[in-house]
């Protein structure tokens, strides 16, 4: 097997990303999705919680926090009920946003990436090019990963500012991101993204149309989102070492899944003449 030509990988990835940037009909809805989950919903909820004047309601919310594990309750900062409620929401409630947004965006990009080449006829160009199938696969993988992770990184930064501006004054200053969020963003999310994309790219190489790829990848990504969400919640709620270990297992599964996924891209599939497509 010949050496990997990283120049080809980056060229394929860069060109795919360039096309995504040109596709306003794709990235505008994705920006709205990211904005909704990272900015609009947290802002509305946290602003409401921290500025609410209803003492009785705040007391009820504080009592609700008592269902949290003792360790988690010990982490809550702030003296006032609205401070503690705001802290709990900011740190624990919004874990799904860090999972849903990147998985949704990357799945949408990845599902169209190979079948899209075939549908548009550009797979013929790639099949005749000197780029190896491993290089094409990795380029497509990077081009699918970047939009989801980039949106998440930007959203995460905005979310941090919003949380610190709205809740920070109630809990004695800027506190976000917490250590658990760093673990979630850097340890839990990437392997799940990798597993999801490895499956989605396989699908994209095998199905007949982009529509079919989108539908099938939705079925794949949904359970993964649920699993990733539960993992993320476990990490945030401080469920000892289990999420960290499962995160490690996810890294291993993700690595092998990506490595074996290389075989799904073949020149005959790019041409659309492989068996079954």
């Amino acid at each position, binding site marked *: 097997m010949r050496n990997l030509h990283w*120049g080809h990988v980056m060229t394929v990835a860069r060109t795919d990303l360039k096309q995504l940037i040109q596709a306003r009909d794709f990235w505008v809805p994705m920006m709205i999705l990211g904005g909704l989950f990272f900015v609009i919903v947290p802002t509305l909820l946290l602003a409401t919680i921290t500025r609410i004047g209803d003492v009785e309601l705040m007391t009820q919310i504080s009592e609700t926090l008592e269902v949290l594990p003792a360790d988690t309750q010990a982490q809550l900062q702030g003296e006032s009920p609205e401070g503690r409620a705001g802290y709990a929401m900011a740190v624990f409630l919004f874990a799904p946003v860090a999972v849903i947004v990147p998985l949704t965006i990357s799945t949408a990009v990845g599902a169209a990436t190979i079948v899209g080449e075939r549908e548009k006829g550009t797979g013929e*160009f790639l099949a*005749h090019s000197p780029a190896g199938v491993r290089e094409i696969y990795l380029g497509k993988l990077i081009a699918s990963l970047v939009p989801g992770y980039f949106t998440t990184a930007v959203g995460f930064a905005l979310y941090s500012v919003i949380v610190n501006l709205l809740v920070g004054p109630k809990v004695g200053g800027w506190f976000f991101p917490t250590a658990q969020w760093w673990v979630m963003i850097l340890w839990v999310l990437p392997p799940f993204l990798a597993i999801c994309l490895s499956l989605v790219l396989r699908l994209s190489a095998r199905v007949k149309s982009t529509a079919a790829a989108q539908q099938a990848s939705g079925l794949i990504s949904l359970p993964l989102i649920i699993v990733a969400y539960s993992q993320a919640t476990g990490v945030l709620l401080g469920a000892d070492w289990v999420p960290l270990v499962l995160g490690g297992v996810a890294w291993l599964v993700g690595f092998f899944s990506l490595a074996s996924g290389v075989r799904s891209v073949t020149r005959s599939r790019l041409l659309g003449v492989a068996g079954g497509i």
Partner: protein
Amino acid sequence: MCRWSEVAQNPVIHVNSASRWFGDVQALDNLTIEVPQGAISVLLGPNGAGKTTAIRMITGALTPDSGTSRVFGLDPGGSDGEEVRRRCGVVSAKPSLYDRLSGWDNLRYAAELYGLGRKVDDRIREASTMFGIEESLDHQVGGYSTGMKTRLALARAVLHGPDLLLLDEPTSGLDPESALAVLDLIRQMTGDGQTVLMCTHLLLEAEGLADEIIILQHGANLVSGRPDELARTYWPAPIVRIASSDEAGLHALGNAPGVTSYEQTDGVAVATLDRADRTPELVGLLSQRGVPISSVVPFTPSLEDLYFAVRRDSGSTGDEIDPPEDSSGRPVRDSLPTAA
């Protein structure tokens, strides 16, 4: 046109008994072809004859189920694939362009994949100027006309100075003027020593362009060679077509000296001669007998004549390609002299 004395002995492409199946459909059936260096070879055949599959096998995009394929002496379907593809330029039947990208970005993508390095910008300018699209490079390809897309695809194919150009129906969808321009450009390219293998089902397109033709049918090579040599194989003796309103008078040609065979249909006699200089004698004979002559046309077989003769010999109906028509709208091949 190719100077045959300069053609290298070793063929650039050598496909030997290659077969390829797609499920139950056999696309290539023991195909054997050789393409000489520095020439324009044309793969002729109806739709579904295996032309596109042959091109795909030559670059290694597809591998044969059996048989072998060698390009520049290398194995395109194996470990030499990258090297072979780097030395090939391909224009596929559809232009295979990225509609959302500009013309420049499409060319740049190819330039980077083909490893042009620092020469990228210069080569893009040269190739786009060669095909007259330099003014449109900043526009999104989605807004290009069909002709511009084809020109861009051609520019992309020659960008890296390939040794071998593989053109699959390069004038498909073009108006006649643009098609002629593209064929002229293809002709120019072989002037630099490049080898061209072109697929087409348009016989007129191949006429005058092909140094060598390969006629495919059902994935097999029916015949290949230089058009003039093949024509001599099928029509070894000179043929003359003489038209007259006196059909009975034309029958005199049947017994005339030097006429080896004779047919007549609707006042047009087709006579096969032992020598080309017999024609004045035949005209003199008919004149002596008072037979009015409306036309005397020496038969020079065209590529179309050759194509249909080959396919007729192979037992094909030839229905997949529309034969040329005469002024009355009648298929010309019906009135062609039968090949030897």
